[in-house]
């Protein structure tokens, strides 16, 4: 057991950090906002930490700055994009991510230009990462249960109905936007501590694709889906290798593509949704069996 942890430490850390990134996207998708701005915030959080580290601030302060700056920018973004829905919102938030990337490239000494900032001194342990992941998971669990859970369901699926029930969809979605940004910023700051470097590519397309894939594969209806998706997508390349499949660099993207295709077609609610359906099916079987 201990051996497993030490030999897979990097994988575990990556899973924890990318789960937080997946949460960021999942929070807005669940609220019915197809926003990928969490990725821009991931970069903002990373740079906030890197820059405060250079100014010899305590890492906790650096992380907090990342969270707060991301939250404020997300709030402004929410005000700006309030009328946009669906694909248009998705495009606008991708544009936001690109703008963050460009700003980071042109930030001069402050952001380190094309190369970014490396040699970040702040470090984080696997235990600390998982403690943060547990805390955020708990908060999201609380957000998805009971009254808020029901209300967000309706905001996502049927806005006129939400309004007829006294639900202020706009403010609920704005809240999700800000939370999504804050969690994205947190994830980015922790990632910077884990890797020791940040670069403008943190806001780039591959990160957007990874973030979205994790959430779609796992299931965006719940934080747990995002967690499952992150764990699977981060583990898969290593997992395939350990099954003795050679020449991974070629096959990885094929397996990856097939997986996404399969899930998109057969599991519209992701792996978690699929598992839940299987669970309720088995429960029904069991009941039929007992009644017979």
């Amino acid at each position, binding site marked *: 057991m201990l051996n497993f942890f030490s030999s897979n430490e990097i994988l575990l850390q990556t899973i924890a950090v990318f789960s937080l990134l997946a949460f960021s996207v999942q929070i807005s998708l669940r609220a019915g906002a197809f926003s990928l701005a969490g990725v821009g915030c991931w970069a903002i959080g990373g740079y906030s930490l890197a820059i405060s580290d250079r100014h010899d601030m305590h890492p906790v302060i650096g992380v907090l700055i990342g969270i707060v700056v991301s939250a404020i920018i997300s709030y402004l973004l929410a005000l700006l994009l309030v009328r946009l829905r669906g694909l248009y919102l998705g495009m606008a938030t991708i544009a936001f991510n690109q703008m963050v990337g460009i700003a980071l490239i042109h930030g001069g000494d402050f952001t380190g230009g094309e190369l970014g900032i490396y040699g970040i001194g702040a470090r984080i342990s696997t235990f600390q990462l998982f403690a943060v992941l547990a805390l955020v998971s708990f*908060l999201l669990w*609380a*957000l998805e249960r*009971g*009254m*808020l859970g*029901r*209300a967000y*369901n*309706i905001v996502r*699926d*049927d806005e*006129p*109905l*939400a*309004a*007829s*029930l*006294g*639900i*202020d*969809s706009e*403010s*609920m979605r704005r*809240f999700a936007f800000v939370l999504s940004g804050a969690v994205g910023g947190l994830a980015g700051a922790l990632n910077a501590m884990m890797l020791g470097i940040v670069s403008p590519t943190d806001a780039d397309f591959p990160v957007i694709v990874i973030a979205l894939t994790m959430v779609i594969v796992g299931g965006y*209806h719940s934080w747990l889906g995002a967690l499952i998706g992150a764990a699977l997508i981060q583990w898969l390349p290593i997992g395939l290798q350990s099954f003795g499949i050679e020449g991974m660099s070629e096959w990885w993207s094929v397996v990856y593509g097939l997986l996404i295709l399969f899930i998109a077609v057969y599991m519209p609610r992701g792996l978690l949704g699929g598992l839940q359906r299987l669970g309720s099916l088995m429960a029904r079987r069991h009941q039929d069996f007992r009644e017979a």
Partner: protein
Amino acid sequence: MHQVIERDANREMIDMQSEPLLNVTDLTVNYDGVVALDHVSLTAPAGQLYGLIGPNGSGKSTFLAAISRHGKVTEGRLEFAGRDYTGEPAFVAARLGISRSFQTVRLQEDLSVLENAMVGADHHRITRPVIFNWLRLVRNRREEAECRETALSALERVGLVDYKDQFPSSLSYGMQRRVEIARCLASDPKLLLLDEPTAGMSPAETDDISELLMGLRDSGLTQILVAHDLSMIHAVTDHVFALNFGKLIAEGNSVDVANDPDVRKAYIGVADEE
């Protein structure tokens, strides 16, 4: 007999109230060129079951949408319990106590019948800021239990407690409609707007709904019912408004309105077309 006495007592209480519950003045709604409602003015004192009739396209749904603030208001003034709410968004109208159903069934497929009704019961909690509700992790449980109770008694009222753990898709159309009414009731509304709640129902199901609505009226709930079925309108309503081409052409008790020459013409005109 008992019910009649209770109802009369309610009536007297209502007569003593000075403010009408709903006051609509010169309500006009234009959809780029189409005048869907044309200077409609009406007053609805509390405690009655109102019928809203008119041929297809006469503006009934537009009227409900306007007074629930879902649809636009081009001109005019809306007052609820003495308060002008013309410029408010729909969720504010709902918080004032105006609850509505839509012309099509709108239930949450991934929530159980009970949870669907609980959404209505969440009504008073939903007015608090999201972050406040979110961080009240501990007290949430007690409020959740209260909410469940409210939803259960609403389901009891519409006769669906036994189905509380089922999902909407496994219920008949008539039952789904009743879940919607339970969801409205759970929010303890002051005014209930129902857009053709019995469309597509069997006669038996329609009778069930009629009885339910009359029961609600007897317990003091003000309702506006849109229905095409004139025999139902006769059976349940206290007061009827008739629309044609967006204009209010008659109002009064159901017999008088049905015999009104303009109303007859409006309906026969439609019958001729068909």
